[in-house]
């Protein structure tokens, strides 16, 4: 009996302790300046790194446009295809630019789209269809094509292939088009840390898989580089293997609302179409959001939430696709960068809307520091 009373007492003490802690956290978050200190005092921010002379003007000169009128270009999209407002659309934009600027004939291009949850043989059949109709180069969008590409590219050594987001296929006729997502994410992380009033920001990832963890890693590192004490809320919509996380705006909205309720005031999403839900939650709360992949401020489908989008992490799949077609037309693939990173403007941040103009100098300083190698950005989140 006495033991039991002891338990009850302990439970009561623990519960009240939890309640007190919870309250303390709540007040801390909802009233950031309640302690009388200024925001700068609540969230110490480092100065931007010194720009080495001439460091910022490091972008590679664009290649001259080649004549692509003789090419037959096939494009195999990932699930969603054109109209996903994300990386499929970006790849499509690259093709469109090649049509308008390189003389590529529209009738000499073909686009096919993957179905959700399809088996490897479906992907292989899709590529074989393009090969048998004489398309070369064939651009596959998404790492899901890697296995099928390994098979089909080995079968057809005379056809040229490229694959976006994968560098695991090591065949002479396959060109990987991969990006340094972590570098672009570092910059928007820095932007979030410079913009936050609460010293707390959020990250909403679509699916907890290595590719999206690169976005998370860069974002957190960039934020901590600016404000070492900053708190970053990281949430994923679905576990690895469940790709619905990229197409579930309702889930995105709920998770983002949770982060906003917890005090975050800038949220970066890397969640494909689920990002629309994130934007809606942010708009309802009157806070700020950061877009991903394309310049989401300018996407027509997001016009009603664009005023909360302060910037977007640009992953220039369109540039990679365009450059690849251009290099194919010129017959020299060695001009393509190994990784589309900040140096070649393969990733970056968007300035549309003018909401980051006031911190552009600092962001460009970080950009220069990354390009010069003074800052190395991790591509995997630290376990702490």
């Amino acid at each position, binding site marked *: 009996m006495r033991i039991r009373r002891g338990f009850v007492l302990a439970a009561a003490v623990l519960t009240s302790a939890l309640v007190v802690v919870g309250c303390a956290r709540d007040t801390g978050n909802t009233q950031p300046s309640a302690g009388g200190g200024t925001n700068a005092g609540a969230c110490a921010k480092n100065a931007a790194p010194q720009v080495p002379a001439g460091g910022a003007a490091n972008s590679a000169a664009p290649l001259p446009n080649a004549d692509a009128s003789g090419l037959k270009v096939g494009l195999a999209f990932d699930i969603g295809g054109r109209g996903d407002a994300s990386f499929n659309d970006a790849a499509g934009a690259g093709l469109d630019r090649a049509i308008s600027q390189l003389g590529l004939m529209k009738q000499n291009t073909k686009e096919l789209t993957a179905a959700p949850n399809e*088996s490897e043989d*479906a992907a292989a059949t899709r590529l*074989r269809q393009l090969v048998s109709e004489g398309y070369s180069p064939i651009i596959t969008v998404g790492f*899901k094509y*890697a296995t099928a590409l390994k098979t089909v590219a080995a*079968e057809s050594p005379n056809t040229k292939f490229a694959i976006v*987001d994968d560098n695991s296929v090591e065949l002479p006729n396959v060109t990987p088009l991969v990006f340094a997502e972590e570098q672009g994410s570092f910059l928007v992380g820095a932007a979030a840390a410079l913009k936050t009033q609460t010293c707390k920001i959020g990250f909403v990832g679509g699916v907890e898989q*290595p590719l999206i963890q690169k976005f998370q890693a860069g974002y957190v590192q960039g934020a901590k580089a600016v404000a070492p004490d900053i708190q970053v809320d990281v949430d994923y919509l679905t576990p690895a*293997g469940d790709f619905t996380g990229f197409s579930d705006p309702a889930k995105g909205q709920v998770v983002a609302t949770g982060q906003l309720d917890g005090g975050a005031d800038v949220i970066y999403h890397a969640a494909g179409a689920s990002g629309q839900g994130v934007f809606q939650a942010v708009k309802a709360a009157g806070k700020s959001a950061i877009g991903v992949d394309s310049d989401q401020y300018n996407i027509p489908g997001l016009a009603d939430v664009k005023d909360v989008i302060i910037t977007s992490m640009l992953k220039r799949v369109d540039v990679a696709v365009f450059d690849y077609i251009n290099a194919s037309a010129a017959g020299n693939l060695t001009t393509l960068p190994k990784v589309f990173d900040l140096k070649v403007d393969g990733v970056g941040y968007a300035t549309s809307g003018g909401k980051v103009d006031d911190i552009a100098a600092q962001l460009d300083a970080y950009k220069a520091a990354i390009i010069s190698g003074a800052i190395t950005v991790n591509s995997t989140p630290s376990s702490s």
Partner: protein
Amino acid sequence: MRRIRTVLLPPALAIVFAALLCAVALLISGDSPLTALRVMITQVGEGTTAVDIVNSGAVYYIAALAVAIGFQMKLFNIGIEGQYRLAACVAAIVGGALVLPPVVHTLVIIVVAAVVGAAWAGIAALLKAYRGVSEVISTIMLNFIATGLIAFLIKPDSFGVLQGNNISTAPIEPSGQFPGISFGSGGTLFGMVGVAALLGLGYWFLLNRTRFGFELKASGESPTAATAGGVDARRMVIIALVLSGAVAGLVGLPELLGRDFAYTLTSPQGYGFTGIAVALLGRNHPLGIALGALLWAFLDKSALALDNVGVPREIVLIMQGSVVLSVVIAYEIVRRYELAAEQRRVAAQLRDTAAAEKAAEKVAS
């Protein structure tokens, strides 16, 4: 003759009806149904499509058998999806980690997959038998848990290996792979297709030639009657679900042991749900399921060929959905028609005997 009609007429009607529906949908969307039909038929001869149809058909067949075992006892195992994915993942991890001589290695992987599938279904079975939890609810929930568990298992810090932006389990060495039959550029037929056929044979034998099969069907038809006849209904629930899970565990293996050799983030999903549709199409009969599985696989591959000529591939989804619906409806219509015909026949017979009796009475008097 009448038996053939009752068995073959409904699915034939259903397919014709579904095709008509699709033709209308195609006309509305501005495409030619004839082009679509031509493309769907000619695709079979192109590339690896014929072999792919049989390979996918085998996968669907195993999934549908797993569903059908539950259906025989009026149990709806929606958890095939989670059971096969978890089983394939664990089997891939075990198969990639072990070094064993050929044949033994393959057998170990197959047994592991069946055991994992059975164990995962076993949770739902125990909940159903001892706590009365509906297997529909518990298996759906277990599907979600399986997704999370797989995500944990193939993390690079657990058993996964990072491959570019994908995560994969360690590849299974050739000793553990199931050899297939190569048709050169026509593709490679999975060796597991034979295993699927054997499973179908075993399913038929179990249900129609063993006491267990009788008891299973009896408990499904009427649990009270079966209990009165000395069948332990609780035991039957557990056995049926565990057996269904063990078969479900094999669903992922044809592709795992015949082509992919590793479980990855992009390993296919949804076979469990396809299995339900195919089992409905095949009316739980091993041959019917085989035809249904091949039809389904044929339609699936048609989507690729249709997409290639610019016909919206969603037409295939319409076709698949309407085939399942119309099969169910067609069987019901034919059943009622047969019932009415039977009634008329019996009535005519009665009339004849009554007339004959009257005539006999007249003669007698």
